């Protein structure tokens, strides 16, 4: 059963096999949780919002038109539901999405600690937190949610070129930080 494609799961749920929706939940809960947590910065709220996202997706299954991948459609629900939760910050993030002129300086924001140098994932996780919201979202979607730049652009409502610019800039910023602190040799 677990080898079913997303579309096969939806069709089965629409036919009345509600319990099959659990396969879909198990498949996407961790990835979607990373995205929601990154946006809300609060674990408890993130679980609650994620439950609402899955319920919204369940209620709207019949409206899925198959014009995009089901995962993209679902992540769009996740993104919009979380944005609604963050209604105060919504305008800010949306305005950031339409423009990538913003510059950021990770070095002044990030304080290197010797203990963190031993753990690459911990180091990257901490640095992603320091990135501007739109950049950290693009990184999360690309690496945690395995989304292509086209899918990210569809989800966020940004152009593909803007998404690429944000992705490149985020990686460059992380690389510059690693290089300037001679971190690369230690990790290799």
């Amino acid at each position, binding site marked *: 059963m677990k080898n079913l494609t997303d579309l096969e799961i939806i069709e089965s749920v629409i036919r009345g096999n509600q319990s099959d*929706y*659990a396969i879909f*939940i198990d498949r996407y809960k961790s990835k979607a*949780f990373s995205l929601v947590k990154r946006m809300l910065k609060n674990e408890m709220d993130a*679980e609650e919002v994620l439950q609402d996202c899955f319920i919204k997706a369940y209620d709207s299954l019949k409206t899925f038109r198959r014009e995009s991948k089901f995962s993209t459609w679902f992540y769009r629900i996740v993104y919009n539901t979380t944005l609604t939760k963050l209604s105060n910050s919504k305008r800010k993030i949306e305005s950031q999405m339409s423009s990538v002129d913003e510059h950021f300086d990770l070095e002044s924001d990030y304080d290197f600690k010797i203990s963190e140098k031993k753990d690459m994932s911990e180091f990257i*996780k901490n640095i992603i937190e320091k990135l501007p919201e739109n950049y950290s979202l693009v*990184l999360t979607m690309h690496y945690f949610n395995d989304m292509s730049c086209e899918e990210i652009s569809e989800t966020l409502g940004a152009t593909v070129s803007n998404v690429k610019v944000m992705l490149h800039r985020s*990686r*460059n910023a992380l690389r510059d930080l690693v290089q300037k602190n001679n971190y*690369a040799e230690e990790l290799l």
Partner: protein
Amino acid sequence: MNKLSDEILNRYIDSELSQAELKIVHDRLINSEEDRKSLQALQLIHNGLKNMESESVSPDFTPDLMKRIMKKSKAKKEQGYFIFSVASIFVIIALGIIGYVISLIIAAPSATGDTVAGTKETVTILENLIVPIKNILSKTNIAMIGSIFSLGLLISVYFIFDLVKNAKGNLSRQH
């Protein structure tokens, strides 16, 4: 020689370069240590990001969520049944009234085939129907009907309030 641009290095990592661009990059990487180090650091970040594990939700996330979904769809079904039953009652009553009127009209004698006489008979039948309704809605009966409706309304409001209270209680217990 200029160093390789960040854009080219990023596109190299994403495998977006053409064969010609790839050749240029490979040549540069052989000859420039700076470019090599830059690409190495970028690759390190790329691999680090790729190998990062997703965050995990609480172990009861899926069963709790499925319970919520099942409960919600059950309530939706019950609501559907309730609306269907009420609508059916109204439709049956309406059909009964229409059927009764039609049967009266059909049963009325119109042997002459005179349309004026036929119309008069129909008016008489309708008047006969309206008179009992008028009597039911007379001054003395209207107060009683109003009281019964108000009582029904109060009982319905009590049940709706109780239903909402239970739903809220269930939701808060789930969180």
